[in-house]
């Protein structure tokens, strides 16, 4: 059987103390402990340490840890509880808001509703952005005594376009930019003002309720 040449490791000592070494290793360690003062001292110190730990008393209990079942909470009292109620109300208000909002949007998207909102914003940028139009040509002038040919829409805008073409290009760009910005803002305002007061009220209430519910949840967390 091979003899242990070095001192025992901490793990060998610990497992040996617990008598959990394999049988062949156990006898080797027995022999080594008998011969080696340092390992014998280490083993006795380990033994004293573990005995001290085992002799530690259990601390006295500060109270009982028995458990009991709490009677189930009734649905009515849950509904009446503040947190549950505020969440339910917020959900109902949000659902109601979606319904009335979709009704409003459906009404706004009817063809009749598009014209007043977009007519002004479409015509002007097109004419400005298209730049100076060519001067009327002879082919477009009414000739002869025949019935006058219908004048195309572009030709009817020619005088205005010709006037604008005289203005400097920089002025056109600035006007266009101002127009687009103003239209975007007014479009948002128009959209909000197009919503019914009922929709706005429900939406505001829903947002407030959701905010209250979120703040309470965050505080509780």
């Amino acid at each position, binding site marked *: 059987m091979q003899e242990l040449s070095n001192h025992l490791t901490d793990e060998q000592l610990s497992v040996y103390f617990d008598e959990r070494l394999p049988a062949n290793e156990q006898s080797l360690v027995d022999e080594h402990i008998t011969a080696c003062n340092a390992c014998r001292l280490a083993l006795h110190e380990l033994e004293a*340490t573990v005995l001290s730990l085992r002799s530690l008393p259990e*601390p006295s209990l500060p109270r009982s840890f028995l458990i*009991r079942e709490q009677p189930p909470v009734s649905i009515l009292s849950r509904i009446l509880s503040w947190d549950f109620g505020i969440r339910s109300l917020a959900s109902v208000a949000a659902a109601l808001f979606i319904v009335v909002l979709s009704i409003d949007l459906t009404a706004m998207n009817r063809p009749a509703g598009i014209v007043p909102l977009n007519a002004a914003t479409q015509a002007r940028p097109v004419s400005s952005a298209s730049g100076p139009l060519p001067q009327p040509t002879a082919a477009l002038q009414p000739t002869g005594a025949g019935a006058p040919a219908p004048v195309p829409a572009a030709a009817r805008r020619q005088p205005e376009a010709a006037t604008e073409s005289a203005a400097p290009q920089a002025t056109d760009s600035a006007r266009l930019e101002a127009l687009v910005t103003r239209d975007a803002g007014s479009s948002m305002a128009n959209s909000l003002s197009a919503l019914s007061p009922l929709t706005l009220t429900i939406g505001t209430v829903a947002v407030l309720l959701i905010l209250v519910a979120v703040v309470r949840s965050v505080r509780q967390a």
Partner: protein
Amino acid sequence: MRIIAAQSPDPGQSIDLMSAPKFLDDADILARARLGDVDAFNRLVLDHERPVYSLAYRLLGNPDDAADATQDSFVNAYRAINGFRGEAIRPWLFRIAVRCCYDQLRRRKRRREDSLDADSEEVHWEPADPDPGPELGVLHSETGAAIERALQSLPLDQRTIVILCDVQGLSYEEAAEAADLELGTVKSRLSRARSRLRELLRARGELPGASDRLAEM
């Protein structure tokens, strides 16, 4: 169904003490507890609350936190007992308790970070009871206090294993189950913890018996 602590002020006393008959053995009590019988489960609580509280107290070093962790452990154990398939309930209860203690330590660390007082992770050991009576004399003797302080100075993973094995007396296998570790990890952590404790106690002159015994040989 919601389970809450009974909050009886006196340890060892129940509110409507255990309608479970006294002659039932552990297996019967366990079987009843698995079926959701609270009274039967409370018999288990009475049997194990001291070691579970002791484990929590030595892991956390604070009686209040230990009491909270112990209560959480039993509530969680009641909720999970239907899934208990082992033979020995103590390692299983200890496993739940160790998790609750780790949760408690995480909460404590978060509180310290929130209060910008995160200067040290060391557990500040507080005596469990300022007037423990004569039976706990060792706890507050010089040697007992030195051992408690040495325990608290160990890293948490080593402290857990040495408490499970040497203070609570679990086997390697039971400690592996309680700490959710491999057997080899238990052996190596236990040996490191013991070695460190030995050095600490030797440095404080708390191991005179060992050299005396060696001199006798």
